[in-house]
């Protein structure tokens, strides 16, 4: 009996949680240019329940928009560890995937996945607001099925992530 009610609670909780994801308004790179059109009247983002909030303590989604320096990576790791569970990370643009335009730069990291766990990538340089909204709906779908568990992977594989961070951050 207890096991069934826990599953039902988890199902209801996921269904309600997916409709109210709060975004962290922290523009790390050049891709943050596409966020204001998504938030305002034309491609309205608030009808899905996604609202920008300013502190990591209050937000659910960390959007890594664009390229990531080693200097920014140190701060992003601090911000990610300050957020409260459950939390999700979305990688914007082609720079977190494989370096993007800055593949031969000495200070841009090439693979974001080695340092913090990423749930979703959006391809494009920069993705248009329609692509961003499609990605948010995909994330809501993953939350509903219970598959967006980046925060659990971070806690379980903490040594792997910390070793990679220390190697590149010094």
């Amino acid at each position, binding site marked *: 009996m207890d096991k069934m009610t826990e599953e039902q609670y988890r199902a209801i*909780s996921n269904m*309600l949680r997916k409709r109210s994801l709060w975004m962290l308004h922290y523009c790390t790179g050049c891709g943050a240019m596409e966020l204001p059109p998504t938030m305002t*009247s034309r491609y309205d983002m608030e009808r899905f329940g996604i609202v920008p909030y*300013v502190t990591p*303590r*209050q937000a659910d989604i960390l959007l890594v928009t664009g390229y990531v320096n080693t200097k920014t990576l140190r701060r992003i790791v601090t911000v990610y560890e300050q957020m*409260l*569970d*459950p939390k999700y990370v979305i990688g914007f643009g082609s720079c977190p995937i494989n370096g993007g335009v800055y593949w031969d730069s000495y200070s841009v990291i090439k693979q974001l996945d080695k340092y913090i766990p990423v749930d979703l990538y959006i391809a494009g340089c920069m993705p248009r607001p329609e692509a961003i909204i499609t990605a948010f709906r995909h994330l809501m779908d993953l939350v509903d099925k219970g598959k967006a568990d980046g925060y659990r992977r971070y806690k379980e594989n903490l040594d792997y992530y910390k070793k990679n961070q220390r190697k590149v951050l010094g």
Partner: protein
Amino acid sequence: MVGKEILIAIGIPLLAFSIGISLMMFRRKIAARIQRRYGPNFIQPLIDIFKLLAKKGNITHGIMYDLGPIIALAASITVVFFIPMPGMKLMTGSADVIALLYIMVIGSLATALGAGESANPNSSIGVARALTLMLGYDLPFVIVIITLVLKYHTTNLYAIMQAQAGGSWAMWVLPLSAIAGIIVTYGALGEHPFDAAVAPNEVATGPMAEYGGKHLGLLMINHAFHIYIELALFVDLFMGGASNIFYFYAKMFVIFVLIIFFDEVLPRFRIDDAVRFYWRWPTILALIGLIIVLVK
């Protein structure tokens, strides 16, 4: 009869909370329609509060940080019992309007102490701004209440409400004090010309900067109660309460829609401009209203 009292003790805050939450729901929808877009889902504030209360982190900065939202919520629930609802006197016999002014400060003070305990400079700036704003709007607020007390020769809130029954609302009889009262309600709610304390782009939402998860859920419930308290106080003082709950809700709704219309279009005052504004125009209007009552 113990059963009836327990029912009242649980039912009245629940009723106040549902009125506050429904006004919050209307607020997001109306604000979205003003900006020519569809708004969020209609029951979005409830989903937000559920999500916040279901977060799993535990972060604590000390005992006062945890107690801050709890004391604020307790203070708000206490104040709800001192404002008469239609048809029920509640506890207005024990405390009059002047005591109500003192009890209403406890909530802000508890939030300020809790936010000061979290070691964030943004919180300290936000708390300083909130208390400065309270200094600003208390002056016309007290003058307006003194005007009403002098007009109706009583400080009991229920008696003031009864004296306006039958169409002679204080809003028509004392129009200048009513205008000053509405402007004070803007500041007390933290709506847009005067929301320098909770400014997301300047100080990261002021006192709420370090709160997340369950604490933030309690603070949002507190905000719903706060909306109910401010609007119910205005309706009781100036529009003569109501005979049943639907008229009460309709009056609160009309005032709230008026507030939203101004809120969505106006930018934000700097904190010293806000205090200077409060000590100039609403004070002058309230003083003229007071002089009219004294002379007549």
